[in-house]
C-alpha cells in the first residue's frame, strides 16, 4: 500500500494544510508522497510575466510558506514532494527549495526539474485545431505570453525512480502529480491501462485538495461539515491493483463520505466514460464507491482506454483591461435608487461614447445567476427597501477608457441617486487563454536534477 496526500488544491489554498497530511503519512512509517497543485489556467501566464521581469521569479509565490513547515519531515520520512509549483520557472523554484533546505539544515536534496511543457517558438498555432470546449469564443490575435502543453506523468515517475526527493514541474495534467509517484512505486506499465486509469483517478480526487474531504461542500442544515476552519486535506491509500481508500488525517475537521467523493469524482468532468488525459482516457462510469469506515471511502472500478493522439495546450495572451466599481444604496426605495444608478451609468457610457463592454449587478438581488444584459434583474421583484450594492464591470482594450468608465461610478457620489455610498474601484489587466490541441511529438517531457546538466 502506498500513501499520497494533497498539500494544496490551488494557488492560494490554506497554507497550513500540508502539515497534518505529512504528519499522518510519516506516522504510518512507510513513506509516500505529498502533491501540490497550484497552477490554474492563467497562473502560468502570470508566472511568465513575473519571470520576464525577474529571472528568479515566475514560480508559486507561496512556495516557501507551503514547504517550510513540512520539508524536514518529508525528507526524514521518505515522503516525496511533487508539485507543479514551478509554474513558468521550475529551475528557480528548485533553487528556492534548495535554499530553504539549506536554512533548515537538511543539506543538498535531490530535486528534479521536469520540463518540456513550454511550446513557445516550437508550435505553429495556425496549424493546430482549437479545443472545442472554448465554444464560440473568438480567436485572439495579440501577443502570446505563454504556450504550455499538459504533459503526462512519465517524467515525474522517471525522476522519482532516479531518486528524486522533490519533483518540481511546470504544466502537467493535474492527476499526473499522483500518477507519477504511483507508477514509480508499483512499477505499473504504461500499457496497463486500467491501473494507469486508477492512478489517474486517485490524482483526480486529490488534485483539488479539500474538495473531496469536506471543502466546497458545506450547506448548513442540509450537508453539514464538522470544523470547517480545520478541514483535513485528503490522503489516498493505494493498493497495487489501483483501488484505493480516500481518507484524511486524524484529528482534523471536514469529512470523507460517499457524497463528498461523488461531488469531486464528477468535478470538471465532461463525458464520464472518456476523461482525456495525456496518459490514458479514463472511464469512471463503472466506478464503485464504498464507505468502509469513518472518513474512509474505497474507490474501485476505474477503466482505462488509450490516451488521445493530441495533447491540450493552453495559449495565453495579453487580454483586455477589467475595471470594477461598487456603490451601496440602503433603506427606503433603495432598489429603485440602485436601478437608477445602473441606467445612469449606461447612459453616461453611451454619451461619452466610451469603447468598453459593461455590465451591472445589484448584489442582494440576482447577481450571480444573471446575464450581462441583466435579464433576471429586470424581472426581480424583491424587497424595495433592502440593503443593495451595485457593482459595475467594464472591459476594454484601452486602459485609459476603462479607467474613464470606472471614474463615472465614482462621480455617482455627487451626481447619482440619493444616498449612494462606499465606492470602491479597481482597474487591472487580464490574461486571456484559449486551448489548442497539439501533436504529441512536439511535447518531450524530460527531467534533470538541480545542479546537474539538463
Amino acid at each position: 500500500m502506498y500513501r499520497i496526500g494533497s498539500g494544496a488544491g490551488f494557488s492560494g489554498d490554506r497554507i497550513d494544510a500540508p502539515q497534518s497530511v505529512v504528519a499522518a503519512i510519516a506516522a504510518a512509517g512507510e513513506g509516500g508522497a505529498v502533491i501540490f497543485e497550484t497552477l490554474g489556467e492563467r497562473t502560468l501566464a502570470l508566472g511568465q510575466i513575473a519571470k520576464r521581469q525577474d529571472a528568479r521569479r515566475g514560480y508559486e509565490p507561496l512556495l516557501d510558506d507551503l514547504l517550510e513547515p513540512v520539508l524536514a519531515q518529508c525528507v526524514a520520512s521518505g515522503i516525496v514532494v511533487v508539485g507543479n509549483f514551478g509554474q513558468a520557472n521550475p529551475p528557480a523554484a528548485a533553487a528556492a527549495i534548495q535554499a530553504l533546505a539549506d536554512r533548515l539544515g537538511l543539506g543538498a536534496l535531490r530535486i528534479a526539474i521536469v520540463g518540456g511543457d513550454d511550446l513557445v517558438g516550437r508550435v505553429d498555432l495556425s496549424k493546430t485545431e482549437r479545443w472545442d470546449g472554448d465554444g464560440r469564443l473568438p480567436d485572439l490575435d495579440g501577443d502570446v505570453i505563454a504556450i504550455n502543453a499538459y504533459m503526462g506523468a512519465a517524467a515525474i515517475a522517471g525522476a522519482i525512480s532516479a531518486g528524486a526527493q522533490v519533483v518540481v514541474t511546470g504544466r502537467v495534467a493535474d492527476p499526473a502529480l499522483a500518477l507519477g509517484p504511483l507508477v514509480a512505486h508499483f512499477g505499473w506499465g504504461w500499457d496497463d491501462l486500467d491501473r494507469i486509469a486508477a492512478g489517474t483517478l486517485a490524482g483526480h480526487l486529490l488534485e483539488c485538495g479539500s474538495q473531496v474531504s469536506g471543502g466546497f461542500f458545506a450547506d448548513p442544515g442540509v450537508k453539514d461539515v464538522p470544523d470547517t476552519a480545520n478541514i483535513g486535506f485528503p490522503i489516498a491509500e493505494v493498493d497495487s491493483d489501483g483501488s484505493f481508500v480516500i481518507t484524511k488525517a486524524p484529528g482534523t475537521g471536514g469529512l470523507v463520505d460517499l457524497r463528498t467523493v461523488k461531488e469531486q469524482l464528477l468535478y470538471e468532468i465532461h463525458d464520464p466514460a472518456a476523461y482525456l488525459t495525456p496518459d490514458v482516457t479514463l472511464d469512471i462510469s463503472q466506478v464503485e464507491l464504498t464507505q468502509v469506515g469513518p472518513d474512509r471511502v474505497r474507490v474501485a472500478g476505474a477503466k482505462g482506454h488509450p490516451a488521445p493522439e493530441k495533447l491540450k495546450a493552453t495559449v495565453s495572451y495579453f487580454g483586455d483591461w477589467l475595471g470594477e466599481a461598487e456603490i451601496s444604496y440602503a433603506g427606503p426605495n433603495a432598489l429603485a435608487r440602485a436601478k437608477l444608478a445602473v441606467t445612469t451609468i449606461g447612459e453616461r457610457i453611451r454619451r461619452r461614447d466610451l469603447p468598453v463592454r459593461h455590465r451591472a449587478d445589484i448584489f442582494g438581488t440576482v447577481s450571480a445567476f444573471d446575464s450581462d444584459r441583466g435579464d433576471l434583474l429586470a424581472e426581480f421583484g424583491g424587497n424595495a427597501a433592502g440593503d443593495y450594492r451595485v457593482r459595475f464591470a467594464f472591459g476594454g482594450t484601452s486602459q485609459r477608457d476603462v479607467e474613464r468608465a470606472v471614474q463615472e461610478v465614482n462621480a455617482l457620489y455627487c451626481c447619482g441617486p440619493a444616498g449612494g455610498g462606499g465606492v470602491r474601484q479597481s482597474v487591472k489587466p487580464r490574461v486571456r487563454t484559449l486551448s489548442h490541441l497539439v501533436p504529441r511529438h512536439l511535447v518531450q517531457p524530460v527531467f534533470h536534477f538541480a545542479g546537474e546538466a539538463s
Partner: protein
Amino acid sequence: MTIPGSIPLHAIAHGRSGDKGNRLNVNIIAYDQKHWPVLLEEVTAERVAALFAHRGVTEVRRYELPLLGALNFVIEDALEGGVNSSLAVDTHGKCLSYLVLGMEIRVPVEPDEDALSRRVLQSAK
C-alpha cells in the same frame, strides 16, 4: 401514486459545478438512490438548458451515472466568455450548481411513503 406538487431539487439532491474554458459542468446527485428515477425523469437536458437560456447557452448534454445516482450536465457557452473574459461576478460559474438545485421538480409519493419524504415535502410547502 399521486403528484402532490413540486419541491426544489435541493431537497433531494446535491451537486457541484466546475468550468473549463467557456464550458460549464454541473453534477446533480441524489441523496437517496430511490430518487434516482426522479432525477432521470425531471432533471432533463431541456429543463437545464431553459435555466441557462438567458446566459446564451448553445447546448446541454446529460450523462447518466446510475451506479452513483448522479447526472452530469455539460453546458456550453453559459459563462459569458469564461474566467478570462467574463464581466460577471462569478467568472468561474462556481455558484451555478445552485441555479440547477433551485429547479422545482415533482416527486411521486406513495400512500405509505416514509416520514423523511413527508418532511421534505412539508418543508417545501
